[in-house]
């Protein structure tokens, strides 16, 4: 087996060192009958050629986003990733390292995490950010729990425009943890509406919302703060930070975001990375790893994981979360891509995303019977057609177009949204793609 270095002679010699005749002597503690003599009922070892062939065959049964005009978003976005990013994250020293618990020989990981935290804080307009979480949705769940800890209250109000998967995660962790969730109606016109009472620890709102709509959150922040609650802002499209007023500037107390859009591929939904930022005063209630600056014995600047007294491996049942793993390599991809972009590049990227979405909205809106129902948006918006959204998307797929996400897939219980489709454009969208979408949509609706 190519991954196992021992020859039989090596094994023999090592058994001898242990003074035993047979490897199963080392499994003596396994209860009678539980140590299996027969092999598992699974295929035997295969060569690299065979594995590659079998998996390539499976891969060929999927339709890659880049192979067709592609407009799906709804929490995961098809952006272009510079080849440099993939090279960097595949560096042996980054990819095959462990969590930087020995900082003297992990400064590479630690410094990029510090850079990552700095970038996330800047993007979100907040003071501090952690070293990443599993993804945006789990970060949203953690944000609610943190708000409970900070306010010592136990109810979260979730606005209707929050991505339904995010809402479901918040509801799941809340219910299981013994907390209350007040989820507001799902309606594109009131998707930012929410209020807080004295039991409310936080208002959770998404911006741009799950329909793509953008709005100023300042009034909502005030409303929350007046009630002694925090404002948690969810962002699922990190590129929007380059175009829109930051959540921090609008009064957010915690910002969680899905970072996939920068540096990370679609990957059918994972691995992604959660961004988590907040005010400095709440830092000791934050979940997840934090990387901090310090000096070494010789006075040189260096970085370490810090405030680990919040974490499970020290604090055990009193930890701020049970999280052990973060999304280190995804965070590196994010940081490297954002370093390449820089401030000017991110702003240009965001501008192009917006421009393509505006062009797309104009074109689709000109199809008879199609209505763009999102008044202001970044790179994603919602349309309503005369037919069921799911049927339209299905028919478009037969025309070789991935035309967006039917609202009925996101909110199956909302009959008013049955004909709606959430549509996204990015910098990878071409005029040809838009023209092909329009032509196919006309065909599907009226052909």
């Amino acid at each position, binding site marked *: *087996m190519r991954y196992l270095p021992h020859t039989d002679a090596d094994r023999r010699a090592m058994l001898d060192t242990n003074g035993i005749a047979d490897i199963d002597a080392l499994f003596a503690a396994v209860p009678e009958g539980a140590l299996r003599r027969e092999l598992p009922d699974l295929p035997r*070892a295969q060569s690299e050629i065979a594995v590659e062939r079998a998996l390539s065959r499976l891969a060929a049964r999927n339709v890659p986003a880049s192979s067709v005009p592609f407009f799906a978003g709804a929490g995961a976005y098809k952006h272009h990733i510079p080849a440099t990013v993939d090279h960097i994250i595949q560096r042996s020293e980054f990819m095959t390292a462990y969590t930087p618990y020995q900082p003297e020989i992990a400064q590479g990981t630690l410094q990029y995490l510090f850079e990552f935290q700095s970038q996330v804080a800047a993007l979100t307009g907040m003071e501090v950010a952690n070293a990443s979480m599993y993804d945006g949705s789990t970060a949203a769940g953690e944000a609610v729990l943190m708000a409970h800890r900070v306010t010592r209250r136990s109810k979260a109000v979730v606005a209707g425009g929050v991505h339904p998967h995010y809402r479901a995660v918040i509801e799941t962790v809340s219910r299981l943890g013994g907390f209350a969730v007040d989820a507001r109606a799902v309606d594109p016109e009131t998707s930012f509406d929410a209020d807080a009472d004295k039991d409310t620890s936080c208002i959770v709102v998404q911006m741009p919302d799950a329909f793509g709509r953008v709005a100023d959150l300042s009034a909502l922040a005030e409303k929350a703060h007046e009630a002694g609650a925090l404002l948690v802002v969810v962002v699922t499209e990190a590129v929007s930070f380059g175009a829109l007023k930051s959540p921090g500037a609008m009064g957010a107390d915690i910002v969680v975001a899905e970072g996939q859009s920068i540096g990370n591929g679609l990957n059918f939904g994972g691995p992604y990375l959660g961004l988590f930022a907040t005010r400095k005063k709440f830092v000791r209630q934050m979940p997840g790893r934090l990387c901090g600056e310090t000096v070494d014995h010789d006075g040189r600047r260096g970085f370490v994981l810090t405030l680990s007294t919040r974490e499970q491996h020290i604090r055990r049942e009193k930890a701020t979360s049970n999280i052990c793993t973060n999304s280190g390599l995804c965070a590196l991809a994010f940081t490297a891509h954002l370093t*390449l972009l820089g401030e000017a590049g991110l702003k240009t990227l965001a501008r192009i995303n917006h421009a393509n979405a505006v062009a797309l909205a104009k074109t689709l809106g000109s199809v008879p019977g199609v209505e763009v129902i999102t008044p202001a948006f970044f790179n994603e918006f919602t349309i309503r057609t005369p037919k069921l959204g799911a049927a339209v998307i299905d028919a478009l797929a037969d025309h070789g177009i991935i035309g967006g996400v039917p609202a009925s897939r996101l909110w199956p219980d909302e009959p008013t949204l049955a004909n709606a489709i959430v549509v996204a454009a990015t910098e990878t969208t071409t005029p040809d793609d838009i023209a092909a979408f329009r032509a196919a949509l006309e065909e599907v609706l009226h052909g």
Partner: protein
Amino acid sequence: IEEPLIFEIGSAETSGVDFEEPAETETRLGGLERTDAIGLAGLSEPETMRHYVRLSQKNYSIDTGIFPLGSCTMKHNPRLNEKMARLPGFADIHPLQPEKTVQGALALMTELSRWLLELTGMHAIALSPKAGAHGEFCGMAAIKAALEARGEAETRRVVLVPVSAHGTNPATAAHLGFTVRAVEAEPDGTVSVDAVRAALGPDVAAMMLTNPNTCGLFEPHIREIADALHEAGVYLYCDGANFNAIAGKVRPGDLGADAMHINLHKTFSTPHGGGGPGAGPVVLSEALAAYAPVPFVRREGDAFRLVEHADDAPEGAAPFGRLAAFHGQMGMFVRALAYMMSHGADGIRQASEDAVLNANYVRARLADVLTQPFPEGAMHEVLFDDRFLKGTGVSTLDFAKALIDEGFHPMTVYFPLVVSGAMLIEPTESESKQSLDQFIDAVRALALAAKAGDAVRFTEAPRFAPRSRLDETRAARDPVLSYREKTPE
């Protein structure tokens, strides 16, 4: 040459990405344009490459040397897995594109499930947990849901956890509203049936047990413990972190486990990536199978379907909810399946055997110079304590740092907490005898040096690393967590 931060070398104008300007110029941002300076620094492409390549050179990694971290299972990361995960058919598909355009992905998830269920001997699987601790949450949530279904959620609120457990165990239990009750270990490092029985009661919901445990020992009474728990209406959660010792040899389902997470990076070689991303699928017993969260994949004839909402679940299923957006760590699934297919049933078993053999070889060759709290029966990792350092002026931490100067990553230290100055060594099956011998020789030499009174070599270590010891107290006292903080605008 010291490597500065990007903020110290970049500028707001510089960019390493070029764009074609779009035709459209109308803006529909609703007046929310960002007008302030964000505070990002950009670098050109060559500068970016050099910056991160140089940073990487300050890291230790499995590709550069043995990573004997007990309980962490740092093994070889095959590049075939990376190549497969990057096939456009896997890497470039959207989680919400039509099911008919992702049948290969759903087939892969089904195939991965088949392997994991067969290896663990369990009945159902939840693929969506994003890491081991997330898997723990998933498994314990399924237990809570089962208790709810039994109407005992309010009465059974205690979870038994051995003192040697990973910190994630009690933390997970607490996050689900459980109270943690510690179970002491026997002097031999294992948990006895009597200790479990003593802790049992009508208030107990579950026990969380790692097997092999964090002392590297297989729990010999695991079956009796499971029986005792089940008799008392209590579920057994197995922490699968150490599955690498027994995959292909022992099926946790045969031992009585009701739920177990599997760290794909530990047992199935997905790269650890300096702290993630992980993936923590959870396997469930028949008793818990109904409660698996959404989403999951169902086969219907030749087609595969995603069940994304509880309402959509098949007859008899009662998903406890949703743990994350989308369907799990697909990129990790591809890698793990590539690894399992490469090994096959025979290779997986051999890998477990080699992992255990390697740990025992290390144990045998170090037994005379170090001290062991539990000298018998190590599995895939071997535990030493600090008694051999008594009177030398050298602490476990010093010893670890001195190993850095010898060119090795240290073992896990001060874990498990039940042992004084613990040193937990897990070489994994990836290491050749030659590599083990090098490492062993270095440890032996250090042990002798410590005993010979050469304390300075330890207390001042590391001297040959990119940094000497870092001041962690200072970092925590007045935390500096981002570059901007130092230059408030």
